[in-house]
């Protein structure tokens, strides 16, 4: 039976060619689109590492003209006064490598024998609690760390550990990275530029609120604050810092805004692909329906020669599935070159997923489209199909 079907496909190669081409192209379109979608979907599924709901971020105005003492006092006042407000739970400070800012601070050092490259952010001791960072081992910064320890304490993310010190417990170990650093804790992650960014090695350094570069204030709020409340906070801050040129950003809004530039192409691609699939499905359905009509005589004859209705259904479905498989295999041969030759920026695993998913989608569509016409074909009455006028 299988050989018979191959013969049928081969002998009709000229008329099958266009259909092959169409399925092949559908595969390529799906592959390209799904690679992008899968890549982002996988990123989306990794933990962001911090909480954006009911968090505000305040970019304070520049205080470099103040000396560090009065700057420290000012920030202390801010912290104290704000934490007394009824809906504010916690205050923390950090540098400008802040969530969704697009700012990056990256450093590299190979004096430890191999190159370590890591993103950097500087935060104070309240940061983990305010932003709900998950410390998986060791501890976060605390008061002790301000008291001139021997080594500069740092916190790294799990990805940093996995990449540079796999399967080692490095808590309290010293690494050479722009001087000696002591790893005191490991956090799950801190992908501060949004859920669609790659996981990268990340290192948190300790800063004190009085430092000038810690110009971003983080506020953890109780749920359900209103604009009026924000106005009150705004006024309070303005009164303390004697300036209005700061802005309060809602982290959740920032997160949404930030991810929108990725969501738009994803949604656009998915909707266009869905439409293309429907279009191709309807087209295939039509073509099959016509082909089966054209081959009514053949069907009648096969029935007369002893084919059962299920044989007919099977034949037509197998015919189209083989044809599809051929096109998909051809598509895979092309698509597989991308990860094999390392073309393009995506990690191979995404591409393999995309290949598998594209192939599955196409096979399912084709099978579903073939079911009805093939069933219709099997119902063709031999006597009518063979009737000579």
């Amino acid at each position, binding site marked *: 039976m299988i050989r018979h079907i191959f013969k049928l496909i081969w*002998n009709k190669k000229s008329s099958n060619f266009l259909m092959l081409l169409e399925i092949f192209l559908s595969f390529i379109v799906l592959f390209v689109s799904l690679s992008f979608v899968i890549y982002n979907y996988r990123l989306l599924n990794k933990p962001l590492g911090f909480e954006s709901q009911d968090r505000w971020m305040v970019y304070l105005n520049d205080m470099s003209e103040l000396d560090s003492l009065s700057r420290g006092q000012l920030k202390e006042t801010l912290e104290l006064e704000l934490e007394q407000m009824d809906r504010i739970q916690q205050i923390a400070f950090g540098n400008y490598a802040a969530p969704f800012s697009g700012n990056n601070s990256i450093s590299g050092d190979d004096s430890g024998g191999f190159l370590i490259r890591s993103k950097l952010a500087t935060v104070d001791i309240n940061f983990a609690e305010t932003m709900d960072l998950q410390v998986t081992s060791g501890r976060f910064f605390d008061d002790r760390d301000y008291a001139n320890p021997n080594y500069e304490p740092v916190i790294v993310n799990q990805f940093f550990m996995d990449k540079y010190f796999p399967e080692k417990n490095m808590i309290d170990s010293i690494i050479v990275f722009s001087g000696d650093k002591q790893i005191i804790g490991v956090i799950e992650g801190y992908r501060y530029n949004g859920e669609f960014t790659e996981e990268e090695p990340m290192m948190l350094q300790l800063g004190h609120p009085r430092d000038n570069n810690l110009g971003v204030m983080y506020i953890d709020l109780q749920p359900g604050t209103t604009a009026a409340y924000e106005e009150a906070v705004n006024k309070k801050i303005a009164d303390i810092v004697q300036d209005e040129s700061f802005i309060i950003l809602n982290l959740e809004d920032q997160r949404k805004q930030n991810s929108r530039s990725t969501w738009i192409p994803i949604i656009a691609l998915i909707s266009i692909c869905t439409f293309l699939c429907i279009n191709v499905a309807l087209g295939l359905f039509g073509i099959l329906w016509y082909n089966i009509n054209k081959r009514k005589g*053949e069907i009648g*004859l096969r029935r*007369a*020669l*002893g084919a*059962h209705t299920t044989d007919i259904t099977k034949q037509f479905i197998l015919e189209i599935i083989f044809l599809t498989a051929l096109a998909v295999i051809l598509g895979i041969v092309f698509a597989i070159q991308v990860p094999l030759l390392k073309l393009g920026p995506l990690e191979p695993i995404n591409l393999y997923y995309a290949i598998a998913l594209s192939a599955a989608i196409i096979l399912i569509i084709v099978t579903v489209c073939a079911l009805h016409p093939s069933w219709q074909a099997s119902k063709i*009455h031999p*006597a009518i199909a063979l*009737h000579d006028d």
Partner: protein
Amino acid sequence: MIQLENIHKVYRTKTIETTALNNINIHIKKGEFVSIMGPSGCGKSTLLNVMGLLDEPTSGKVIVADQEVANYNSKATAAFRNQTLGFIFQSFHLIPDLSVIDNVELPLLYRKVNAKQRKALAIQALESVGLKNRTGHFPNQLSGGQKQRVAIARAIVGQPDILLADEPTGNLDSVMGNEVMDILLQLNQTLNTTIVMVTHDENMAKKTHRLLRIYDGSQVA
């Protein structure tokens, strides 16, 4: 071999009711070569389809090769058709996308015969109709007579007891027609195959054992 009792066949559409067959009673013995004649539209093709289990009568009893056929859609009927019956058509009904040998192998395919054996039997059948050297050709490369001989090869490849031929010479000139007729006669004599043939041609009909005449759905002789 074939026994039809009180066969009625009525075609109904929304508006009209057409009686295609009216109280047909036929008994055909094993090894008989029977021809059926009648004007266009008299119901001869319908009759043949009923004998071939391709069409269900509205009422009446059909017994083919000692088996009464009840359900026309069952797997058993399909297998029965495959084993017992062979068909030849006026317009050949060769599958254009399949080569000559693949066309001939077709009935064996549904009998789940293995490829090697299929090929051997098909060549044997083609040899018996004198087309052994045309196995790789496609139907559109053959003349009408050759096509019909391929069709006959296909009909006999499964060694059926009964051969049903619907105007097998209708699309052929007299030379080719005679060639085809000779093959059928020879099959009937050497293999004792029962043959029922619908025809328009008195000359062809005369060569058969018995002639049935149908007129307006009824048997007149």
